[in-house]
């Protein structure tokens, strides 16, 4: 179970690290090399995004990665084949991230069965609130997979508790308003928000959106259980190439 893995891991580390890639960006081969480097740099878990043509919650960096991966010929089938290879090669938990239409068109039940078969542990679907997710929740449950739900700074505490009642594994807390990959202010405001998230759930909490360096991660120690790095590794890779990823991840805990 994802939750117990995370809790066990937290006995040894102050904060865990989850990283994100868009499958097939810049290429499928590169994607696999990036995962290899991230695992070597000791990341604790990863979310692999199946690209979608209309990723409304993503900012420019991840949006472009989605578009380029699709333009280069990524399909859902190729993403699953890739994911299977990743799960067989590396011994960390993986999650899928994608938008609901990808699941819907594949068939929600078939999707969950496939995720299980590949050996992934769960999924993050940012445009699927539990109110619309009855079929998804059941399929995930049937396959012992973790549906990851999201808290945001605009979510009232009562709704956080409601979301938490459907979530498994951990809760993904979005650090601020806006889309992925923009600046976040790591300040007292964020402390208060994380405390509120913590009160509303017993699940481990991850914080993402705008986490980009060691300073941000140090700030989160003792406040969140998992730091999520998304756009920053893609940005780095765009600028300095795939090989820069390993040192970057290592530097976060240096």
């Amino acid at each position, binding site marked *: 179970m994802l939750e117990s893995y995370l809790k066990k891991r937290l006995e040894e580390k102050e904060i865990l690290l989850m990283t994100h890639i868009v499958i097939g960006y810049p290429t499928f081969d590169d994607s696999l090399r990036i995962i290899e480097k991230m695992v070597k740099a000791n990341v604790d878990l990863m979310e692999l995004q199946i690209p979608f043509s*209309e990723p409304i919650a993503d900012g420019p960096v991840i949006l472009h990665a989605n578009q380029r991966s699709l333009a280069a010929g990524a399909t*859902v089938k190729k993403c699953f084949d890739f994911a299977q290879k990743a799960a067989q090669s590396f011994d960390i938990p993986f999650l899928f991230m994608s938008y609901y239409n990808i699941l819907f*068109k*594949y068939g929600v039940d078939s999707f969950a069965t496939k995720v299980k078969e590949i050996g992934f542990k769960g999924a993050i679907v940012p445009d699927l609130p539990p109110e619309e997710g009855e079929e998804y929740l059941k399929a995930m449950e049937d396959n012992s997979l973790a549906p990851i739900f999201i808290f945001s700074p*605009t*979510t009232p505490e009562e709704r956080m508790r409601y979301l938490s009642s459907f979530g498994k594994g951990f809760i993904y807390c979005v650090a601020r*308003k806006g*889309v992925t990959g*923009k600046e976040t202010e790591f300040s007292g405001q964020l402390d208060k928000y994380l405390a509120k998230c913590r009160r509303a759930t017993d699940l481990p909490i991850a914080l993402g959106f705008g986490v980009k360096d060691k300073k941000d991660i140090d700030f989160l120690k003792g406040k969140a259980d998992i730091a999520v790095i998304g756009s920053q590794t893609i940005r780095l890779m765009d600028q300095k190439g795939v090989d820069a990823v390993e040192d970057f991840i290592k530097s976060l805990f240096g």
Partner: protein
Amino acid sequence: MFDRGYYDGFGGAFLPEILVATFDELVETFEKAKSDPCFWQEYSDVMSTYSCRPTPLTFAQNLTDMFGGSRIYIKREDLNHTGAHKANNVMGQGLLTKRMGKTRVIAETGAGQHGVATATMAARFGYKCTIYMGEVDVHRQRPNVFWMGRLGAEVIPVREGTRILKDAINEAFRDWVANMDTTHYVLGTACGPHPFPEMVTYFQSIIGKEARKQILEAEKKLPAGIYACVGGGSNAMGIFSDFMEDDVDLIGVEAGGKGLESGEHAARLSSKDASIGVAQGYKTYFLQDNDGQMKKTHSVAAGLDYVGVSPILAHLKETGRVRFEAATDKEVIEALSLTIKKEGLIPALESAHAFVQAFKEAPSLSKDQAIIINQSGRGDKDIFTVAEAFKDPKWMEFIKNKAEEYNA
């Protein structure tokens, strides 16, 4: 939580968590306004003093004589301020924005009509305004871009994806998730997450309410059919909504582009190329591949060039209450040309799609029957596209001379 706005499985509210509270507020504001007996009065007062409501229902004597079948009436939404039915929706949402105490509005636009309408509304109410418009549309609708700028709106060309309407919607959502405290997103059509399909239809229903009264006065009976073009579906929902329970054929006409067989079109309900999916926050028919990736669409009319369609219309297709047809770019130019020459009316390229289908069916209807075509917008804004389609030599010469003047 609110009722999630389903129409027999279509619709819903597939929202990122960050927007849930914003939608709760919007639903609450809309519900309160609807149940406030003064609100509709306030809305229709604004529309009669600021826009041009009620818009006339024009009897098209010459077209009627030419086709020799049913009597043809044209509902003149082109006579609204800013030249299209879009004004109805934006003024309504402008009033709601005031009720929510917000100070900024954003909108997507395809043809630019909704953008211009939103910019006028923002100027009138004193809101800040940002308009997202696909880069392709910015190029084909330059005059509207000019006016938006003059009206004080910031126009942001969207260079993502296919660079048309759907991409502009995505960018507007991305703005909204960051700025919802101050900002209302004035979605321009009866699509998107609940309550937009219902809310936009509610404001646009003013078209059908008037048309019903006007046709009963003119003909002493209901029409045999009503024709409206369908992009997102707001003008169609607007004119159809008051005839839903009647024995009146309702016909929605989509963009057939270069022909349904060509694959280059935007026909979601009248072709076999679309399938049910979930994107941009709602469930409907989308032009998408088997993986669920949205496809490129094409239409000569920027306002119809959209991958999705109103979930309410998707539902009405399934029940058979509304029939859907497609008109090709070529047929649209011909119908436009004919309407200009015969009646002196200049429908928008979007609206001309409805004329195409009405012209196909009018001859086989009897002389004592009437039909209504919704002229959702005026065509003079399309002067560049239309002049090009007509290959008008004098216009081309004018443009060349103008360019030389500016180069000099």
